[in-house]
């Protein structure tokens, strides 16, 4: 194929989009609707993921130490926990600091209630705050820490606390959301492809006469296919760009309204962080679907 013929195909492809007026609009609309649903879902999954990531990383193990142990014992326990490969960080919170934080947490209203407690009269134990590398290993690490008591007759560990139950549930939920999200995104992508190729098929069905005449006057299959190829790509491109635009406007409006509301306390992933990934995916998918839909659909009319 020479360059002049190539230009002719591109020109014909563009012309066809306009010639087929409403059919093109129908194809673009079907792409916009499918990709929009897909895009919304991807945004949803991304945000749930980011919330889940934050929740995951906030899981810590509270190791309450026994009241009657000395500093060397505390250091021993601390070193033993630190030696565990799953552990990323250990923070020591003395009983004094614990009381101070507790006061702050309770606020000025509780000042009266906590008046009697001071350095000499502190009911709180010393505490180690343990963070792990893999949030999912929290229950396992907690058990290992509890088992440290077996090495020491002093029983230095009073209680290990990590929100047992609720943490497991959180992990289950975030894992489920990720998996279901992935399945949904894949499913939606597939459905979009069929929906769109079907619309394109209908538009081509309306043009089988044109294809028949092209064959009759001696056009090769490649010659017939090319303009449809360009047309499909163009429809896919326009559809995905429109979808990206709608998602951008909708998402930024949503982000702004949520961000201004401290009660909700959650912040959405900024569009700027994900637009390249999202729009790239939508445009790629749109163009691919457009090309696929049009080339697959004309194949059967070419067998004349």
């Amino acid at each position, binding site marked *: 194929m*020479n360059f002049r013929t190539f230009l002719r195909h591109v020109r014909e492809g563009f012309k066809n989009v306009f010639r087929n007026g409403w059919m093109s609009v129908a194809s673009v609309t079907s792409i916009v609707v499918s990709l929009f649903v897909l895009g919304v879902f991807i945004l949803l999954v991304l945000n749930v993921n980011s919330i889940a990531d934050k929740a995951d990383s906030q899981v810590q193990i509270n190791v309450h130490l026994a009241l009657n142990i000395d500093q060397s014992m505390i250091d021993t326990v601390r070193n033993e926990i630190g030696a565990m490969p799953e552990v990323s960080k250990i923070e020591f919170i003395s009983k004094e600091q614990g009381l101070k934080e507790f006061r702050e947490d309770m606020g000025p209203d509780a000042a009266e209630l906590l008046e009697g407690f001071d350095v000499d009269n502190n009911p709180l134990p010393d505490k180690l705050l343990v963070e792990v590398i893999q949030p999912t290993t929290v229950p396992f690490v907690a058990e290992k820490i509890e088992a440290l008591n077996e090495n020491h007759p002093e029983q230095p560990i009073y209680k290990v606390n990590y929100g047992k139950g609720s943490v497991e549930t959180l992990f289950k939920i975030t894992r489920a959301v990720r998996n279901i999200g992935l399945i949904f995104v894949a499913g939606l992508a597939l459905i979009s492809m069929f929906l769109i190729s079907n619309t394109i098929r209908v538009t081509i069905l309306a043009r089988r006469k044109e294809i028949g005449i092209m*064959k*009759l*006057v001696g*056009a090769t299959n490649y*010659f017939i296919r090319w303009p449809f190829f360009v047309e499909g790509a163009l429809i896919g491109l326009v559809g995905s760009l429109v979808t990206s635009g709608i998602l951008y406007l909708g998402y930024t409006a949503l982000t702004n309204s949520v961000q201004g509301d401290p009660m909700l306390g959650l912040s959405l992933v900024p569009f700027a962080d994900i637009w390249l990934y999202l729009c790239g995916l939508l445009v790629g998918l749109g163009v691919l679907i457009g090309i696929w839909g049009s080339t697959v659909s004309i194949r059967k009319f070419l067998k004349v």
Partner: protein
Amino acid sequence: MRTSHNREVVEFMIEMQDVWKTYPNGTNALQGVSVKIDSNEFVYVVGPSGAGKSTFMKLIYREETPTKGQISVGGFNIGKLKPRKIPYVRRNIGVVFQDFRLLPKMTAYENVAFAMDVIEAPKKIIKKRVNEVLDLVGLRAKANREPSQLSGGEQQRIAIARAIVNNPSVIVADEPTGNLDPETSWGIMQLLDEINFRGTTIVMATHNRDIVNKMRKRVLAIEHGQIVRDQQRGEYGYEF
């Protein structure tokens, strides 16, 4: 033109040898048809509806393939043609239908130019040649109209212009006057006669008794899938 390569010495423009056509539903459309048509001939194909005329025509422009037997058109054995080669053979055959089959959203000029566009002819040559054939069919003045703005006879003239624009050796016309009134039909026939006079073989299926009887040419009568009469300067021969 590309169709000229590999062509054997042409004895007959169209030659069929014991051609059979059975459709997948079991219909025997043609049963052992043998015929030879010279270049420059004008042949009418007549016969009752469903006798096999359309199949006969379709075999010539390779819309159908024979179940058995051999067909050559312009020296190409088109029964054994590889699908890839079909377009190049079609460029040597112009086809005209009863229902014109013009593209509705293109002008008359574009419809004719389309046939040259498809074989990747240069634009300059397209313009010259399209205007030439529009002159021949007498519609240069209406070149910019769309088919819906033309009468039936005019649409058929455009269809004929499209069929001849690539200088084919053969024109296959399947009831070209079927949708036209008698007067318009005569205009079309004179045009086809003129094209034949210039050296193009014409095979025309028709139900039009007046035309066959007045413009005497070779007549092939097909009944029950067989050629029952082959007559030079023949008559229509049917009462309907």
